[in-house]
C-alpha cells in the first residue's frame, strides 16, 4: 500500500471512529445546527439596515457555516488529537512504520469530510427552511474561502492541541481559545455598532475573515465570482502561522 493510500485509509478510519463516538459527533454537529435553528427562527424575516437591507438569514447562514467549519476543523482536530495523545494512541502509532504526514493527513482529511457534510447541511437548511438565496455565480468565492478556512483552522487546531497538557484540559483550552473570537467576529450578529477597538482586534484574527469571506459570497450586492481577496490573504497568513506552530508544538506523548 502506498503512503497516499494509507492516508486515504486513515480518513475512512477516523470518519468511522468519529461517527461511532456519540459525544464527538453531537458536539461537532448539533451545536451549529442548533444555533442555526434558534437564531434563524428568532430573526427570520428581519433585515440588516447597516448592510443595505439584506435579510438577516443571508448574513446568518454563512456565519453558521463558518462556525460549523471551526467546529469540524479547529475544535474537532484539537480535541481528538489531545485525547488520542492522552490515551497513548499517538504513542502506539509512532511505533509503527506509518509516516507522520500520512497519519496526520488522515486526521485532517477526516475533518475536511466532516466540514463538507456540516457546511452542506447548514447551507441546505438555510436555503430550504429559511429561504436563503444560494448564488451559483459566487460559488468560486465560497469554495475558496472554505478551502483556505479548513486548512487554516486544522493547522491552528493541531497547534493548540500541542498546548494542552492532557486530555482533561483540552475542552477548556480549546473552547476558551475560540469562543471569544467567535462572539466578536460577526458570526451570530452583525457588529456594525460595536466599538472600533473591538473590531480592530477581531480584524487581526482569522475567525472574522472566514465569516466575512462566506458572508461576502452570499451577499446579493457582491459581484461574481465573490472572491474577497483581503479575507483570503489574512486566512493564508494564519494558515502559515498555524502550520509553523503545529510543527513546533505537536507532541506524540504527554510529558510526564
Amino acid at each position, binding site marked *: *500500500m502506498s503512503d497516499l493510500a*494509507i492516508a486515504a*485509509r*486513515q480518513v475512512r*478510519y477516523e470518519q*468511522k*471512529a468519529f461517527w*461511532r*463516538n456519540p459525544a464527538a459527533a453531537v458536539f461537532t454537529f448539533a451545536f451549529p445546527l442548533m444555533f442555526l435553528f434558534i437564531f434563524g427562527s428568532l430573526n427570520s424575516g428581519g433585515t440588516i439596515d447597516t448592510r443595505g437591507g439584506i435579510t438577516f438569514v443571508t448574513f446568518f447562514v454563512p456565519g453558521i457555516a463558518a462556525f460549523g467549519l471551526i467546529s469540524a476543523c479547529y475544535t474537532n482536530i484539537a480535541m481528538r488529537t489531545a485525547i*488520542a495523545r492522552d*490515551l*497513548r*494512541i499517538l*504513542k*502506539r*502509532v*509512532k*511505533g*509503527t*512504520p*506509518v*509516516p507522520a504526514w500520512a497519519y496526520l493527513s488522515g486526521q485532517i482529511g477526516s475533518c475536511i469530510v466532516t466540514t463538507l457534510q456540516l457546511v452542506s447541511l447548514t447551507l441546505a437548511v438555510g436555503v430550504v427552511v429559511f429561504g436563503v438565496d444560494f448564488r451559483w455565480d459566487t460559488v468560486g468565492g465560497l469554495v475558496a474561502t472554505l478551502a483556505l478556512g479548513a486548512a487554516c483552522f486544522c493547522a491552528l487546531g493541531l497547534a493548540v492541541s500541542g498546548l494542552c497538557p492532557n486530555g482533561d484540559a483540552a475542552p477548556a483550552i480549546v473552547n476558551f481559545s475560540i469562543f471569544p473570537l467567535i462572539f466578536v467576529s460577526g458570526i451570530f450578529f452583525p457588529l456594525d455598532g460595536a466599538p472600533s477597538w473591538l473590531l480592530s482586534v477581531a480584524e487581526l484574527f482569522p475567525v472574522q475573515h472566514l465569516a466575512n469571506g462566506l458572508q461576502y459570497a452570499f451577499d446579493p450586492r457582491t459581484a461574481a465570482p465573490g472572491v474577497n481577496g483581503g479575507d483570503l490573504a489574512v486566512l493564508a497568513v494564519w494558515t502559515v502561522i498555524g502550520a509553523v506552530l503545529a510543527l513546533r508544538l505537536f507532541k506524540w*506523548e504527554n510529558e*510526564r
Partner: protein
Amino acid sequence: MPAIHVRGLRKSYGAIEAVRGIDLDVEEGEVFGILGPNGAGKTTTVEILEGYRARTAGEVSVLGHDPARGEREMKERIGIVLQQTGVERYLSVTEVVDQYRGYYRKSRPVDELLALTGLEEQRDQRVKTLSGGQQRRLDLALALAGDPELLFLDEPTTGFDPSARRGAWDVIAGLRALGTTVLLTTHYMDEAQVLCDRVAVIVGGLIVAEGSPDNLGGGTSASEIRFALPPDTGADALPDLPPGAKVLVEGDSVLVTAADPTHALATLTGWALGRGVTLPDLTVARPRLEDVYLELTKEAAPPHEVAAP
C-alpha cells in the same frame, strides 16, 4: 549479529541518571527478560531500544538500526507492546486490527492475528467493551500485525488473573517457536522462569546479574534439602554429611544446603533407612529465581531512589 546490541547505554533526566551504563546482547530467536524493581530503569532502557527516547550516551543497535533515527525500515520489523496504550474505543476489534495491518508493508492476516491472541470471539466487539485482559491481548495483536522479527513486551501480563497469564505465556511461547525474538520486562519471576532463555536484573540503572533463569545466582546457587527430624531423634543424631554441605536445624526442621545434593541426599536417606525411620516432609529444591532476585536487588539497592521518568 545479535538482534539487539547495547554498549555503555546511559540516560539522564536532568541531574537524575536513570540508566548508568548498560551492556546487553539479545540473540536472534531468543526470549530475553529484563527484571528489576520499579524505577530501576527497565522501561527507560526498553523505550530507548524502541526509538521513543534519545539516549544520553552509548552504542545501540536494533536489527542493525540505530533506533534514535526513527527509521521506518526498523519499525517495519519490530512490534511494540507498551505498558499502557489505547486505541479508538468505539471501533471493533477487527476494524482496529485491520487498520494497523495497513501500516506495514508485510502483515499477518486478521484471522491469524485474532487466533494467535485468542480474540476470535471478540472480533466484532467494540474495543471499549473488552475486559482488561482482552485489551492487553489486543495490544499484542496490534504489535504482531506487521509480522515482526523482534517483539518488545513491557510488562505484558501485569494485572492478569492466573489463567489469563498462562494464556499469554502460551502465546509468547508460540511466537518463540515461530522464531520471533522477544525482549520483555516483567515483575513476575515465574514469568521470567517459564518464558525466558536469559534474563538480566537491572537495579538502579545497572545490570547486576545476567544469565539463564536457572543459573542466575552463578556458583552460589546450592540446592536445598528440607525435612523434619524423625520422632524421638535429636539433631545430634544426624549423620556426617559430605564436605561442602551445610546443616541448619531450627526446632525440629532441618535445612541442608549442598552444591551436590545427590551425595547429601544418599547419606541422609541411607541413615534414615538404617534406623528404620522416614524423613517427614522431605523436599529437594533448587533456589527459585525469586530468591536469587530478592537477594540481588537487596544487595544492589542504590543509595538513592532513582525515579522512573
